[in-house]
């Protein structure tokens, strides 16, 4: 029996620091067997939710990464043409085979390459199906996906209709690159994840890097909170915070100072204009976060 508390526990055990809202969304999507649509800025752990769900449910994660031009054959299935041709070539040597025999042979399971969607519905145990960055795919693909998500069956002309043995737990993520269709939104439960506040970020950091110095962790989080307030091209997410913290603690630093920040800015900012802009407002950032250079503190 799934309960709210249990999900919270499961997520926590997997190292995912949650807000009640996220727990509720995950809980309801499991209970109601509805896809969960997660939106939010890059690097806040949207994809992570699906991974954690799969781990917590002790099932497999099947991932469909969307991109521009993704079409049904890349998402559903494809025949292994090369293998079919080779097989035909061998069959040629045998006589007394009818067309029917050859056909049933050649369109058999072993020549079928299952792509994520088909994999998901034929899986032996209800998997977590992650459809990542759906807004990158074309609108045609979105409507095709709607069809699959509502019927849970796929028709392959040569074989017939394959019905889902278990309905997968679906997580759809989006970055708001493009407006998603109303139809898709209506089929899903909705969750918005924003950048974490100071407390949450700190506990994520502590959870992921237990050995990190307490003061360093606090300083990093404080600094990240401030840096997100700048108008940047690519605002750093939690992933960047973790990278930075990992780098600094690997170098055995236990506090932030000016030189250190200037030298390692490239870990959190990935755009040269952002770096330039941040460098210009560093003094302001230092004042806000109370960071001093070694020279100052002496």
């Amino acid at each position: 029996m799934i309960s709210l508390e249990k999900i919270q526990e499961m997520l926590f055990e997997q190292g995912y620091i949650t807000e009640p809202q996220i727990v509720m969304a995950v809980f309801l999507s499991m209970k109601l067997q509805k896809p969960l649509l997660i939106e939010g800025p890059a690097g806040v752990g949207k994809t992570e939710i699906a991974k954690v769900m799969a781990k917590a449910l002790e099932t497999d994660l099947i991932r469909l990464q969307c991109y521009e031009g993704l079409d049904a054959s890349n998402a559903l299935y494809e025949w292994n043409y090369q293998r079919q041709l080779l097989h035909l070539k061998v069959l040629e040597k045998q006589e007394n085979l009818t067309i029917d025999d050859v056909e049933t042979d050649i369109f058999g399971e072993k020549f079928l390459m299952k792509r994520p969607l088909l994999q998901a519905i034929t899986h032996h145990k209800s998997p977590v199906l992650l459809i990542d960055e759906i807004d990158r795919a074309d609108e045609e693909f979105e409507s095709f996906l709607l069809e699959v998500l509502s019927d849970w069956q796929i028709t392959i002309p040569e074989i017939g209709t394959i019905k889902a043995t278990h309905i997968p737990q679906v997580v759809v993520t989006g970055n708001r690159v493009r407006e998603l269709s109303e139809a898709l939104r209506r089929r899903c439960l909705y969750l918005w994840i924003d950048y974490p506040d100071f407390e949450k970020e700190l506990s994520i950091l502590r959870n992921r890097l237990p050995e990190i110095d307490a003061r360093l962790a606090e300083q990093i989080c404080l600094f990240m909170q401030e840096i997100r307030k700048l108008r940047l091209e690519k605002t750093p997410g939690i992933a960047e915070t973790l990278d930075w913290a990992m780098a600094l603690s690997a170098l055995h630093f236990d506090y932030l100072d000016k030189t250190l920040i200037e030298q390692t800015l490239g870990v959190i900012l990935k755009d040269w204009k952002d770096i330039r802009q941040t460098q210009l407002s560093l003094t302001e950032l230092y004042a806000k976060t109370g960071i001093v250079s070694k020279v100052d503190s002496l």
Partner: protein
Amino acid sequence: MIQRRTSLSENIIAFCRFLRQNDFTIGFEEEATALQALSFIPFQDSLQFKMCLMVTLCRDVRQLSKFDSLHHQYWKELDQAVDSKTKDSLDRNRSQNKQPSLQSLKSWLYGNQLQEEIQTAIHSAGEILVEQDFSTIPEDQIEEISERIREMAKWLANRVNRRHKKSNTRKVIDLKNTLRKNMRNGGELVNIQYKKPKKNKIKLILLCDVSKSMELYSIFLLQFMYAFQSVFKQIETFTFGTSLQKITKELQQNSFRKTLDDLSTTAQNWSGGTQIGKSLSTFVDNFGVQLLNKNTIVLIMSDGWDTGDLDILEESMRRIQQKSKKIIWLNPLAGSPNFEATAQGMQVAMPFVDIFAPVHNVLSLRNLVDFLH
């Protein structure tokens, strides 16, 4: 699907109705989902109750941000209604057959009963709005006209999309390459090569003047253009007044109005003169390499009153023209019948502009679509 029907379910349905009036897209299915979901959570926890409704009834960030206050408003009103009802039944407990009608809530919910009539009235008013200049639209109709623009743009974008669709979406075998690749197998076709029609999608750059006189026009233009996101490979939006700002990312999260408000609180010299030349040259310097190529259409929206250096404007226009496919200059003033390009900035820019068009009303926005391919 729903086992028990209690007064709670009635209230939830009324709540859904209330949300619907506030631009939520909620149908019967969502109502059912919400009710079903509520049966899974502990009933007495009001926070969880709220979150549960939030997850099931909201569809995007904007709705999410509105939800809290609407939720509060509704249940407060409901409490009051229930209070008055209890008092009511104490007074005359004879009429026990009467269903709890929550009349006061209902009348509040529907505002006044003439909802439908009002809607039809608005619709016919909309026909007139099509040709009305944006600047003369009264404040209270702005919401409505932007709604209409969104709808129209969506429809047009779909049409453009269909028109451009390649007829052969299925894979086409590239015989020449297939044969060549399979020489090593003694001419046996093992490895099949495919060819795909090359897709050259157009990129669109929007440069919008947001000085006070232009602001409203810019808002409508952006609302219109954003419906075409699926038609273009990429749309990047910049605003300029005295300096250039890139707002593509902000627009993904917020409405244009909110973005503008944020901008005006952060920009230091907001209400200075317009410096088109300087802004355009910043644009070419910083984004030219990254964004401009022969598949880029640059759309500039301004009245051409430049208070800065005209030489810089000329130079930047030349550079943009060299690097892009097409420059479209939209001037809201051009809508008036006795318009002449008298603004100095406009005269300097004119030689580099491929298409010059007005955008002053809904109709002219609609005509804009023909220039985009």
